[in-house]
C-alpha cells in the first residue's frame, strides 16, 4: 500500500471571499499571483464547472515548464473548491480550498492537500502552498491599493 499523506496551510488575507475565489479561478488573475517562489505562472486555463478541467503552467528558474492539471470535483462559490491535482505524470492527489470570512473584509484561506504519496512530496508542497498563499496575500494588497 502506498502512503497517503496530507497537509494543511492556513492564512488570513485582507480581502473578501468572493474576490479571492475569483483570483483562484480566473486565468488572468492566477497568472498574477500563482506559484512558489522562483516559479512563474506562464499559462492558466480553467473550466470552472464540476468535471471541468484546469491546467497551470509553472516555469522553473531553469526554463523548464511543469504542468499542473486536474478537474473540479466540487464548486461552492465563493467558499469551497475541491479538485484533483497532478504534476506532470506523478500520481494524482486532491486539493480542497476553503475561503471562510473571519471579519468584514478578511478571509481565512485553508488549503488541504491529501492523498500525497511521500514525505518528500508533502514537504515540497507545504513550502509551495505557503508561498502561493503569500503571493495571493500580496496580490490582494496590491489589488486593494489600485
Amino acid at each position, binding site marked *: 500500500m502506498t502512503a497517503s499523506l496530507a497537509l494543511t*496551510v492556513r492564512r488570513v488575507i485582507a480581502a473578501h471571499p468572493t474576490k479571492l475565489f475569483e483570483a483562484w479561478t480566473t486565468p488572468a488573475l492566477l497568472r498574477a499571483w500563482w506559484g512558489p517562489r522562483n516559479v512563474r505562472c506562464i499559462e492558466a486555463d480553467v473550466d470552472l464547472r464540476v468535471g471541468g478541467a484546469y491546467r497551470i503552467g509553472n516555469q522553473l528558474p531553469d526554463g523548464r515548464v511543469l504542468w499542473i492539471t486536474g478537474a473540479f470535483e466540487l464548486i461552492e462559490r465563493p467558499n469551497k473548491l475541491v479538485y484533483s491535482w497532478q504534476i506532470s505524470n506523478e500520481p494524482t492527489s486532491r486539493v480542497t480550498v476553503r475561503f471562510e470570512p473571519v471579519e468584514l473584509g478578511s478571509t481565512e484561506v485553508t488549503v488541504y492537500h491529501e492523498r500525497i504519496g511521500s514525505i518528500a512530496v508533502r514537504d515540497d508542497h507545504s513550502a509551495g502552498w*505557503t508561498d502561493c498563499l503569500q503571493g495571493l*496575500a500580496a496580490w490582494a494588497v496590491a489589488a486593494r491599493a489600485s
Partner: protein
Amino acid sequence: MKSSTAQDDRLDDLFGALADRTRRRLVARLAKSPATISELAQPFDMSFPAVSKHIRVLERAGLVVRTIQGRVHNCALDADHLRDATEWLDRYRTFWDDTLAALAEFAEPST
C-alpha cells in the same frame, strides 16, 4: 469614516489578539523564527491544546500562518498584518513627535 470599517475591524482583531501576555510572548518568540506548537509549548510550560488555542486567536487576527503536516503544526509570523498595527501606531507617533517638538520650541525659544 464608513470606508474604514473593514480596516477598523481588522485592527480590533489585531489589538484584541495582542491584549494577552501569553500571546504577546508567542508573537515575540515567532519573531525570531517559525516554530512548531510543541516547541512553543515547552518554555511556557503549557499543553499543546492550550498553545494551539492561543495560536488560533493569532491566526484569525492574521498574525500567524499555520502549516499542518500530520501531527506537526508549524507556525510563522505574518509580518504584513503586524505592519498594519505598527502603521496605525506610527500615525500617532508622528502626531506626538510634532506636538512635542512644537511645545519644546515654544518653551525654549532658540537663542
